């Protein structure tokens, strides 16, 4: 079975090595400060106790107050998986250090994150749109991308036919 290294454990390990690198730690993930991100991730990859040599997936999430980039790391040798996050609360120009030097595999995924979410990765040599054409205005995956006049936000408050609440066909109150 792949052992999951919980956010707290990995945060504890990082704390010893980089004192003020961890911003927040929960059982599911550990948030690292953007300034220390590259050193922490390189250490996670190379240190004998960690050996997280495989970047499984890199995802950008728009949490409305801030942007998050989530790194799922796997270690083949020790068969473990962990989640590291980094945040940027600058809404109009979020900048996050690029991990392409740590894992070249992140190249396409960072371009996708930039293309769909608008997060600029500092240090990525070839950061351009990957799916949409260059002239495309806006970043589709952002929560406020499709703000229609009536304030309709992305997401579904409730679904038609949900028991207990009276229901009208538009699915909104």
């Amino acid at each position: 079975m792949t052992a999951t290294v919980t956010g707290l454990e990995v945060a504890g390990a990082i704390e010893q090595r980089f004192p003020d690198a961890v911003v927040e730690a929960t059982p599911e993930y550990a948030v690292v400060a953007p300034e220390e991100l590259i050193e922490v991730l390189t250490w996670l990859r190379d240190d004998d106790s960690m050996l997280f040599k495989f970047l499984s997936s890199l995802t950008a999430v728009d949490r409305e107050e801030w942007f998050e980039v989530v790194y799922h790391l796997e270690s083949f040798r020790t068969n473990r998986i962990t989640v590291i996050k980094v945040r940027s609360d600058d809404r109009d120009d979020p900048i996050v250090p690029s991990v392409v030097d740590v894992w070249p595999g992140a190249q396409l995924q960072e371009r996708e994150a930039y293309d769909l979410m608008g997060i600029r990765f500092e240090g990525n040599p070839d950061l351009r749109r990957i799916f949409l054409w260059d002239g495309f205005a806006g970043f589709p995956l952002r929560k406020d991308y499709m703000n229609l006049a009536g304030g309709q936000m992305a997401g579904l408050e409730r679904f038609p036919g949900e028991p207990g609440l009276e229901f009208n066909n538009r699915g909104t109150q």
Partner: protein
Amino acid sequence: MTSLQSEPFVINIGPQHPSTHGVFRLRLTMDGEKITEADMVMGYLHRSMEKLAEERTYTQNIPFTDRTDYLSAMTGNLAYVLAVERLMEVEVPERAKWLRMIMAELQRIASHAMAVGIFANDTGAWQTPVMHMFRDREKILDLFEMACGARLTLNYMRIGGVSRDIPPEWIPQAKKLLKDLPKKFAEYEDLLLTNEIIVARSRGIGVLTPDQAIAHSVSGPMLRGSGVAWDIRKADPYAAYDKVDFDVAVGTNGDVYDRFVVRMAEMRQSLRILEQALEMMPEGPVHARLGAATVQPGGQSIAPLAYRPPVGEAYARIESPRGEIGYYIVSDGSPAPFRFHIRSPSFINLTPLALMTVGSTVADAVVILGSVDIVVGEVDR
């Protein structure tokens, strides 16, 4: 002696091209026959599934997962459904686990047959191997049709189990298929594996060392072709993989030929799994009881139309024929996922394409692209 003045020569392979397996463009800058630069242009099939999924309930998102990797819809369903079950801590009944594994392995054989056939076609074998492999793939698709009514975009799995149980005559037909497939695989192996020209066209081409493979987040037959024995069915057994005995096929040279050999060997291992699974599959329900079942107007009680998973996030990954397919679901308690991210193996396996093709010729670039075995639906999502 001043060298001849020659300008670089840019050639576009795709988006409409017989061997790009879909709308995918490879812009090659060439110096004569040698490639000096390879740039990938994608997005022709980008439907922005991740945005659409935020507007639909968890159950309504299941059909999306078939349409990413439409050559292996079962594994797409399975990965998404496992992620949501991990989020909602749902316990799946035993028979459903076995059914999921059987369907995923059948899908792996069908998808690898397609990949190997198209690879032989890329080397110029004029569709003969592909036609033979289509004949076997048809039988598997008939089995899917019998189980869930569809052949390609199956939509067979549900959160907490599978949509319906298999009809009684399914297992005898599956067993008949399992009896004659080994003969067909033996036929392919001596038709293709030792064919002088296929060996000459694929041995030592597009080599990827294990460190490069791991560093470029490559997964699946490409990773195993480079000698790294990593298979999530063994490393993190899901469904019922821990109850069956099978091997992981690993290559030694990391070239196009080894990926092709690994896929052929994996097809045989899937047969082994299926033989054991068809014997050991227990009886029982195929769908977990989930929350208050809403009563449909016709009086038939079915699973609730939608669920509201607890706030939090979950990441589940399984071994699809193309590599590690993963679903990262973030839930904010509403009936629709807050963030729905697909870790698609075809997309990430393309990262080292430039590394592998630069320096080789156009003919090799096509064969290397064939060995990566991309499905553009999954690349562009």
